């Protein structure tokens, strides 16, 4: 057991029971399979939303409520609405008749195999007694998750991700300006 995990035992009995984990994982896997097998793009999008919501549930189980909230707002509430917005305008009748095809299945299988192999490697090393995540990573209690994320991002002494965060926002700004330039004929 990680010593820093036991240092701050949660006050309430943990909700992170295997029952919830297997339920959420099953929902995610079924949703993921539905995303790639449905011919109707709107059905695929709805299945993807289900997967993303179940993922938010997994974040909650990991005592990261802030990440879960951001996941719901950004992915399920924001990005997927825009997806649906575009997909809704595509003619459904034509999609239904066409054969599904994918030219990248070989690359896909290799990538999926590599990711699976990585997971198995991590799992077996953990089982041997080598701890993962690495020792020394602090685990925060649920009640201060938001505050701890803020101090990791912005604090003068603890904040180590400030630069990366600002770079990411700069990237987003470039994307926004690019979208405006491309969409508008005359500025």
């Amino acid at each position: 057991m990680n010593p820093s995990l036991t240092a701050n035992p949660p006050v309430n009995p943990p909700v992170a029971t295997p029952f919830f984990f297997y339920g959420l994982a099953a929902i995610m896997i079924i949703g993921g399979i539905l995303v790639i097998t449905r011919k109707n793009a709107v059905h695929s999008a709805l299945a993807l939303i289900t997967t993303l919501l179940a993922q938010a549930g997994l974040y909650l189980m990991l005592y990261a409520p802030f990440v879960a909230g951001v996941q719901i707002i950004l992915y399920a509430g924001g990005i997927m609405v825009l997806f649906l917005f575009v997909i809704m305008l595509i003619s459904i009748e034509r999609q239904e008749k066409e054969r599904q095809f994918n030219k990248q299945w070989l690359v896909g299988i290799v990538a999926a195999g590599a990711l699976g192999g990585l997971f198995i490697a991590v799992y077996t090393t953990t089982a041997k007694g080598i701890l993962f995540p690495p020792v020394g990573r602090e685990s925060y209690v649920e009640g201060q998750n938001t505050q701890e994320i803020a101090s990791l991002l912005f604090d003068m002494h603890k904040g180590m991700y400030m630069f990366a965060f600002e770079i990411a926002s700069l990237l987003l700004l470039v994307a926004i300006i690019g979208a405006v330039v491309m969409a508008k004929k005359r500025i």
Partner: protein
Amino acid sequence: MNDFVQYVSSYLGSDKTPGAAGNFFWATVYVLLVFVGLSVAVIAMNWLERKILAHMQIRLGPMRVGPHGLLQPIADALKLLLKEDIIPDGADKIVFWIAPFIVVLAAFSVFVVVPFGQTHAITDMNIGILFMLGVSSLSVLGIVTAGWASNSHYPLIGALRSSAQMVSYEVAMGLAVVSAILMTSLNAANTGTLSMIGIVEAQKQQEIWFLFKFFPLGIIAFTIFAIAMVAETNRAPFDLPEAESELTAGFHTEYSGFRWSLFFLAEYSAMIAVSSIAVTLWLGGWLRPFPNALQGSTWDLAFSLIPGLTFLFLGAICFYNTARMPKHPLFRIQTIGLAGFGAVLALIGLVMFLQPVRDRVGDIFWFSAKVAGFMYLYIWYRGTFPRYRFDQLMKVGWKVLLPTGLALLILTAIVGMRTELVAQVREVFR
């Protein structure tokens, strides 16, 4: 059995919410209470909206079913349940079936974190306000899928308008909310909070409603939120998704019967939900008016009598109208019914005078009263403003509310950190 009784009674006398205390029994009870309370509020809102709109337009409104149409919403509900449930031939059956449930789930699950009182919330989350904004934004999905699945022109255009409108106003709404959250961090520890209970506690601690904090910044933030929340719930004057003169009924044109009533239920509970965000963030949540200026046991007692007096007043109105009822024998049942309703209200009022009840319902009463004020505002808007055109709506959202919100956020941060900023500047020029 004994264990169960002990488990149930162990929560009594606790000063936490059932979720924070981890008591499943009381959490379930609170969930049921909130669900029932919301349904009753939606029914009452249905009647009140028709009556108030009617009186604003110098009409009588519903008068036939029950005294002054009091039973009209129940008759409506029965009618909706008995109506034929039609699924259009070209509709996407599964999505058509799921869409109203997405809307209702999104509208109801936000009430998990709404603080009706210091201990009267189902639970308190670290991410309370974020949870409310996120889950209520999921209702767009229901509206979009409902419009698409109907496979019809008007619903599709209604759904497109609705999603564009809700996504754009969410931005302005978020900025206004963030400026209120910044205000919670102005304490000794310099840490803010997103928890709904924590936000009200911060207002109590700073001895000011955030509406009046940094005058006029608080009021501007509140105004932005108040405009955005009307657009977010698709109500007049921003009810373009269901503009009946152009789109029949917008995204729920093809829905009928029970499914339509789910949309109705979701719309009104979403209105209550955004109003309770506004009340929590800017109007001091469950705190009674003037908790600091008029403090002391005498004032506490005076304010704690108001809930009971309100109900007695409502009962008195019922009795007054009982006396004014026509004396014709056909009206006898209605007269008796109205007198009975008045008696029930007066009885509730009397019960609220009891010491233990008074102490517990006070905060719920003040919270509900503030939310009820917002509900009246919604009806008032509907009776007053003409509908916006869609390009005007987008212009207001992106060109007025968004820049104002951004400027407001920066100004709030500067004013909040003014002592530190001045100290920094002095340090530089020394």
